[in-house]
């Protein structure tokens, strides 16, 4: 994740970038929440594009049309 954080300048900015990208992916119908609004983890985690870099969401929850992030990773991407 070092290069990812470096791209955005700080951990906070990187987190916000992922948050924004996740919300956009949700609006575009690219995320797969279950019936309870929970997003998948592991190798089924949704992969989103954040500023040209792929990021895999680890869990997360959809509420009122927004994604509440749990965690994310760039492992293997």
């Amino acid at each position, binding site marked *: 994740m070092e290069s990812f954080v470096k791209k955005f300048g700080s951990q906070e900015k990187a987190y916000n970038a992922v948050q924004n990208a996740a919300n956009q992916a949700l609006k575009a119908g690219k995320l797969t929440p279950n019936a*309870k609004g*929970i997003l*998948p*983890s*592991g*190798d*089924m*985690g949704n992969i989103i594009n954040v500023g040209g870099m792929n990021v*895999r969401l*680890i*869990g*997360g*929850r959809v*509420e009122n049309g927004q994604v*509440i*992030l*749990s*965690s994310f*990773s760039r*492992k*293997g991407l």
Partner: protein
Amino acid sequence: MEKLNKLEMSILERLATKYPNIKLHIPFLKVESREITGVGMYVNFSYCKPIEETLDFETDNTSISTNETIEIEGLKYGLGYEVDVTDGRIKFIELVTYGEDWNGDIPDNFFFT
């Protein structure tokens, strides 16, 4: 180093129904540390002895989960998790909440949904 607790063992045993080779690794695992993040936890493992048989995935470096929710008292939405596999070995479990603060306490009466 510590033994795996009931939840950690349950996670790995449930994953083993999908990835049977995990069962071979469980007896060799010890908990190196548990890092509470405030919204989750990292359980870091080490192997007490070398194991020849690595976990057989398409790649030696991946993250796996059964995508179940762990229901525990005190968390409205429960916990999610994934297990990190690096170089064919189990490196850590990441436990995450779904937007709730968590102090890392795990009661014995959890269940998977």
